[in-house]
Structure formats: structure tokens, C-alpha cells
């Protein structure tokens, strides 16, 4: 048995196993363990105060958490769909360009180059009710009331969605453009010879070819958007009155400001269900799309 462990194939993969163990597995086990304790950052001795399922039981009764959970799902659904639509549109337009495509591709990636914190500040001041660009622009056209973009029940979440979409639509555009560039020309030309119009070509040839790329982009972005924190934290901090509270702004406040890390970790593990669900759904769709294309 011991000899088996020290066989060269095992020894060769051992560095990877150790690295994954230290970087991923041990922190996961540790944080999972703390979710069963009353661990507070400011009281390290509370790490050993085992409270069983108490944190999870409290979570089930915590309406604010479930509202944040629901709000995060809504945020994910709207942001992902709009990013997909805009990204697809941009990719299709850029794919048509024969001159300056590289320059446009680079320009298109600019929003991705900004840190989310900077994006948050930028949009916070665009949407500022008093000195913001948007309200002052509206005043030019005779609008006489300050619109509370970051306060109103619906506009606040909408404003954050705009910032998130502005910053990340180009991820969709880049991935879908890569997909468009890889589509074989033969079926498209054959369809045109057979009299298909542009919409029919797009619907029956381009889109099926793009579906694997779309689902890969959706999977990546669903994991990103599910963890949205920086932009929300800067623009509204989850407020006012928790109107824009998402899972991770809530978890960060409970974990770091209240120092209640045990409870925050319990929230995190329940929140992961959301990411797993979205990832599973998109992967299922990805496999189906590949199967439709005759790929494995």
C-alpha cells in the first residue's frame, strides 16, 4: 500500500494535489466548519464554539436573507439576458465590418479594463440626484425634478444593472465574436443560394452554431454576476432600506463589519446553491447545444 502511494505517477501529481489542497480544499473545509460555530473575527477563541445547525436554522427564518437571495436571482436574470442581447448585437455588427475591426474590438474591451470599484464610482456620480450628469442633462430639457436614481425602489436596482451591463457586455461580445469567426462559410452560402433571407440564416445556421459559445459565456458571467459586490457596494452599499441588497453585500457586511463570520459563512454556503444551479442549468444546455451540432 505504502509502496503504491510512492509510485512515480502518484508522486508526479502530488504537487498539484497539495497545491489544490492548500489553496482550495482546506479553506473550503475550514469555512464550512466555521459555519457551524459562532465564530466572530474579533474573538478568535469563538472558533471552537460549536453551535451545530443554529446558523442554518436562523438563516431559514431570516426574511432579509431570502429577499436578498430573490433579488440576486432577479439581478442575474435581467443582467445576463441584457448582456447577451447587447453582446450578440455588438458581435454581429463587428463581424460585418471589413475595415477597422481590430481597432473596434480593442475599443469594445475598454469597459472591461476598468476596476469594478472605478466603474461603481463613475456610475454613482452619473446617477447622483444633485450633481449627477444624468439629472443635469434632463434639467437642460426643462425637467424640473431631481430623479433619485439610486434611491427609488425600481430605479436604484436598474441603475446598478446599467453599470454592471456597461462594464461586462463586452465579455459576451468577445466570446460570441470568436464563435462567429469560427462558423464555417459553406452552410451560410448554401442557405443563401437556396433563397434564405438574413433572418432565416441567422435563426437556422448562425444561432445554432453560436449556442455553445452563448452557454459558455452565460456560465462564466452567471458565476461573476452571482458574486456581484464591488459595483453595488460603491453605488448604494445595498441600500437604501436594503432595496439593492444582494447576497454578497449582505454577507460581506455581516462577515466583516459585524465580524460575525460563522453566520456569514453559513449564508455563503446556502448562496453557493444559486451558482451551482445556474452552472448546472447552463452546462446542461451547453451539452444539448453541442449534441444538436453533432459534437460530443
Amino acid at each position: 500500500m505504502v509502496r503504491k502511494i510512492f509510485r512515480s505517477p502518484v508522486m508526479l501529481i502530488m504537487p498539484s494535489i497539495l497545491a489544490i489542497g492548500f489553496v482550495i480544499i482546506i479553506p473550503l473545509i475550514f469555512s464550512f466548519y466555521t459555519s457551524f460555530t459562532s465564530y466572530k473575527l474579533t474573538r478568535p477563541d469563538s472558533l471552537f464554539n460549536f453551535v451545530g445547525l443554529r446558523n442554518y436554522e436562523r438563516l431559514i427564518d431570516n426574511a432579509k436573507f431570502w429577499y436578498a437571495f430573490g433579488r440576486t436571482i432577479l439581478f442575474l436574470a435581467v443582467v445576463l439576458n441584457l448582456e447577451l442581447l447587447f453582446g450578440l448585437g455588438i458581435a454581429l455588427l463587428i463581424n460585418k465590418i471589413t475595415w477597422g475591426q481590430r481597432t473596434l474590438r480593442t475599443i469594445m474591451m475598454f469597459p472591461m479594463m476598468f476596476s469594478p470599484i472605478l466603474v461603481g464610482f463613475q456610475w454613482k456620480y452619473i446617477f447622483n440626484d444633485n450633481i449627477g450628469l444624468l439629472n443635469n442633462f434632463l434639467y437642460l430639457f426643462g425637467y424640473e425634478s431631481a430623479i433619485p436614481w439610486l434611491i427609488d425602489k425600481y430605479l436604484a436596482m436598474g441603475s446598478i444593472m446599467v453599470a454592471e451591463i456597461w462594464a461586462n457586455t463586452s465579455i459576451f461580445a468577445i466570446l460570441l465574436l470568436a464563435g462567429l469567426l469560427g462558423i464555417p462559410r459553406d452552410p451560410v452560402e448554401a442557405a443563401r443560394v437556396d433563397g434564405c433571407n438574413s433572418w432565416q440564416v441567422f435563426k437556422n445556421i448562425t444561432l445554432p452554431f453560436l449556442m455553445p459559445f452563448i452557454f459558455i459565456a452565460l456560465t462564466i458571467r452567471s458565476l461573476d454576476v452571482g458574486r456581484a459586490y464591488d459595483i453595488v457596494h460603491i453605488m448604494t452599499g445595498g441600500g437604501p432600506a436594503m432595496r439593492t441588497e444582494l447576497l454578497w453585500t449582505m454577507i460581506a457586511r455581516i462577515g466583516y463589519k459585524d465580524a460575525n463570520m460563522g453566520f456569514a459563512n453559513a449564508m455563503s454556503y446556502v448562496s453557493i446553491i444559486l451558482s451551482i444551479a445556474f452552472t448546472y442549468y447552463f452546462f446542461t444546455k451547453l451539452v444539448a447545444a453541442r449534441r444538436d451540432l453533432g459534437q460530443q
Partner: protein
Amino acid sequence: MKLFKSILTVISIFSLSFSAFAVDKSFPNDKVAMWGDFSGITLDVKLIGGAPYDPLYEVMIPIWEEKTGGKVSILSKKSHFELDKEIKQDIAAGNISYCVVSNHTSFATQYGDIYRDLNGIVPGDFLAEFVPLVLEHSTVDGRLVQLPQHSDVSNLWYIKSIYEDEDNKKRFKAEYGYDLAPPETLDQWKEQAIFWSDPPNFYGTQYVGKEEAITGRFYELVIAEGGALFDNEWRPTFNDEAGQRALQWFVDLYNAQAVPAGVLNYLWDETGLGFASGTVALNLDWGGWGAYFNSADSKIGGDVGLVRFPMGSGGKRGGWSGSHTYSILNGCPEENLEAAASLIWILTNHEAQMHEARGGKLPTMTRVWDDIAGEMNAEGNAFMSDLFSTFKASMAEDAFTPPLIPEWIPFSNIIFPELQAAIVGDKTVKEALDAAAKETDYLMQDAGYY
């Protein structure tokens, strides 16, 4: 862009105004000197940063390094809310071996026993110079864990010219039945704010609208209305009638559009800049903005008045107060202890406090209150003289700290979203306060208060 420019202006004004105040390197008015030969010692420190704080470090730390031979290594410098998070993470990671850290009387109780007792490290003669009540607020479980640099309490700033305008006086008297003068009660404040408002161009007043800032504002209004946050057994009582009156005051101003629509996203910079932009009539704020408000760089420079925090129906004024402080960590090596004490001495001594007070910050040393008033009188600076006499009265008669318990910040995180919910109309005042009281009850039970 306008705000960006304003922020840059404020930063430059703060920096310029403070650097313009000369420091006498011989420290002639300091009765206690804590110099020493600290050659070869490097002190690791974490400090609160930002425009109001950096100028003192820029002046004092080079002097300390020059005179003692020691070095200061600033490991981190950030806002107090960010520093608070960092310290909590440091405690969890066991990374608390640096020496000096910025602290605050409202925050210090959260961090357990990571700080050294400064009694015995800092000479008694030096401690005797501080206002006794401020030192009492700096004490946790009988241990003096921090040395106060400056205190904060708020009073009401107003634009003078609008109160002196005869037409305004006539219109106000006709509408409200009493003479127009800066408000003396919370009701007058509300009425006048509504009277002045002409949104979106001009607002009657404003308030900081989120996090601990609005919790503190609510807290002082509860006291002014004759209520309390907790009873003697630490059970929440802020949802009683006094608490409801306090919260209703915020709600009424918001509903009347007497405050900017985005006020629930405002913190101190937004309110300070808003008042200096000349678009707000009445602004509750600390003294640290005073020199800037009245400067040529502010749109209301030379037109700024100041009155004490108006009284509530309980016959008391608001006076939520605290002090910015410095602490020495237990993890600071013994051989660096004397140098660490020397560093916090130079950041809190008479010369440092005079330097800060010239910009409007409130001293924590008894003698500095008199000396700064004398200096301003001698210069014929009536505005600053009035600032210090007003704030001195507040510190002596009105100031009170938040409950000095570790649960203050978690409590604040429970109550502030509920206050906001009532203000924006998602809940009634009673519903919001009852919900916050219920959750606070759990918090206090879990913490073992009852």
C-alpha cells in the same frame, strides 16, 4: 466632474490650510516631552487617512523622525470604516504585531483586549492635561486603551444672509407666526427647512443617510426627544414614543422634499460639500469643516453662521460625540514601546492639537481650548472664536458618547436599514422601529446581556 473638482478643492484646501499653520519644532507649550533616542527602531503603524487627517502626519511624523532617529512605516492608511474591517481581519489572522493604530472611542470596545493599557506607558502628567471625561470615554474595562487626538460633536451651520433678508423675515412671519431666526428647537428646524426648500435648486437642510452616520443622528434625536436607545438592562427602548418622534422628524423632512432626494446615500463628504456649494440652508456638522465653510473657496465663505444643536421636546440637545484616538497594540515589541508612546505623544500633544484646532477641530486637552480661543481673539478672528465658544459649550453641556459596548456597530447595522425603510416609506415609523428592536433584542441576548 463638478463634484470631482469639489473633492480636489477640499483636499487641497485642507492640505493647504493645515500646512499653512506653522508648528514650533521646539514645542514650547508642551509641559511634558517624550523625546528619546530611537535610532534603529522602525515603528509599524496603521492610520486613519484622508484629507482631514493626513496633514497632521505630514507635519509631525517627519519632526519625530528627525528628532528621535526612529522611523515610521505606515502599513496602511484608509478611512476608519475600512480600517475597522482591516483590524478585525488582522485579529482573526493573528496579525497584530504592529505598534500604533488609529482608533475611535465608538469603535474601540469591539476589538477585545488587543490594546495596551496606556496608564504606566504614558506619563501621568501628560494624561492630566486631557479633559477627564474624554479620557473616561477612552477607557475600556478600566484600561486606558487610547489617547484622544480630537473630539467631534455637531452643531448647526446656516447661511447668514438668507436669515438677514427682510423679505424672507416678512414671508416667514406671515407663514409661521414667529420671527425668523436660526432654529432653537427641532420643530423650528423642520419648519424652517421646509420654508427654505426650493428643490432641486435649494434645500432647507440635509442629513447623513446611511450606516453608522444615520444611526448616530437618530440616536442624538432620541436623546433630545427625551428617550434612550436601551434601558438599564440593555433591552431596546428606541421604539417608544420618543424614538418614533425622532424618526418622524427625518421622515417629515424627506416627504416635504426639504432634503436632497439622494440624501440616504450621503455621508460626511456629501453633506459638507453640499453646504459649501451654497445649495443648503441649514447643515448639522462638526467643527472640522468650519475653516473651509467660511473660506473664499466655499460659495458661502464669509456668510456662515453657527448655533448650538436645537433642542428636542425632551428639553435636551443632540450631542452624539466621540474622539479620534491612537492606541498601542499588545503585539508591539517591548523594545519599541517607548518609541510608540513617543509617537502618539507627538500626534496628540499641545502643539499638535493647536495645529489641528486652527482648522476647526475640537481639542481634547483642557488647556488647548483656552489657548486656541485666546489666539483667535488676538487675531480678531470672530468666526473661529465663535466656533470654539459654541463647540466648547456643546462639549461641556451636550456631548454624550454612543453606548460604549462591542455591539454598537452590529446594532447600527441592524437599525440603519430600518430607519431608511421608514424614511422612503417602505414601512411606517412604528413598523420600522419595532422590527429593529426585535432584531436588536436577539443581538443583545446572544451577547449575554440578559
